[in-house]
């Protein structure tokens, strides 16, 4: 009995492991969608090719802007340091932005690789596999967007910190002028 149970468990476990995600996903996809994917296969491939190319342009443009912003933040940080002013809060935000930009870059590479794989799937004969890869690519694209939103938030916080610092400097300047005879 024990042997039977052990053997049964092994078979059950193997079945779970071997059930590929695409097979599981096929059950969830409506036949109408699968038919539409097969029918529009050429159009879908053309759209994806266009998207991949326009995304490369967006990524290049954004990457350059991010680099410029990081350079600018580094310059302010150096200037504060050279004036012996505590720049810890600015440096922390710059590091946070740098990590987010690195994550943005990594997310883009993963997205682009997945998009390339998606374009290689023959959606006429394998619409379910195509759909599964499409969902994954869609999710990765959303991840890149999330990184850009995070980066924007950090830049906004940095600006607020600089404005706060500017206000403090202005107050100190006024106080110094008031003390002067």
């Amino acid at each position, binding site marked *: 009995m024990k042997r039977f149970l052990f053997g049964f468990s092994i078979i059950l476990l193997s079945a779970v492991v071997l059930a590929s995600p695409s097979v599981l996903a096929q059950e969830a996809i409506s036949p109408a969608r699968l038919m539409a994917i097969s029918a529009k296969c050429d159009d879908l491939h053309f759209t994806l090719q266009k998207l991949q190319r326009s995304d490369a*342009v967006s990524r290049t443009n954004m990457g350059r802007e991010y680099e*410029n912003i990081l350079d600018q933040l580094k310059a302010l940080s150096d*200037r504060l340091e050279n004036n012996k002013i505590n720049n810890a809060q600015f440096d922390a935000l710059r590091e946070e932005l740098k990590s987010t930009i690195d994550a943005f870059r990594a997310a883009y590479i993963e997205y682009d690789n997945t998009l390339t794989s998606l374009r290689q799937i023959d959606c006429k004969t394998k619409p379910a596999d195509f759909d599964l890869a499409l969902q994954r690519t869609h999710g990765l694209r959303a991840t890149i967007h999330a990184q850009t*939103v995070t980066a924007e938030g950090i830049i906004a916080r940095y600006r607020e910190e600089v404005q706060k610092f*500017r206000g403090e400097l202005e107050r100190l300047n006024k106080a110094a002028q008031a003390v002067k005879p």
Partner: protein
Amino acid sequence: MKAVTAKMRALLRHVNHITGEKRLNLALGIAITAALVLVSISMVMYQVTGYNKLDLSRPGFEKERQDLAKAAPQKTYDTNSPITLESLDEFLTELATRSNDLKIYSRFGDNSLGDEELGLPPR
């Protein structure tokens, strides 16, 4: 370590004894090998870092090259002068310009891979 140094010295002594055409051939061989190694390293880095995905100078990307934004030259921000209100204003203006430039791009937020955009019925 000593053995390696001794071997290197012996090799150098051997090389010093090579003369004429053989010496030129050896130098060329070393130069070509070094160039091949450096090119291989840079090609691996080009692939591994993912820069190959962004290289729009490849053939077939003429249209994309035209779509690249002509970015305004980066203003150099003085890092040595004293911190003044004017310098902070200058910094904030430049930062605002750069942040607004970022908003021009799609930022991958469009629903290009959504069912509606692709004309697919829901799952």
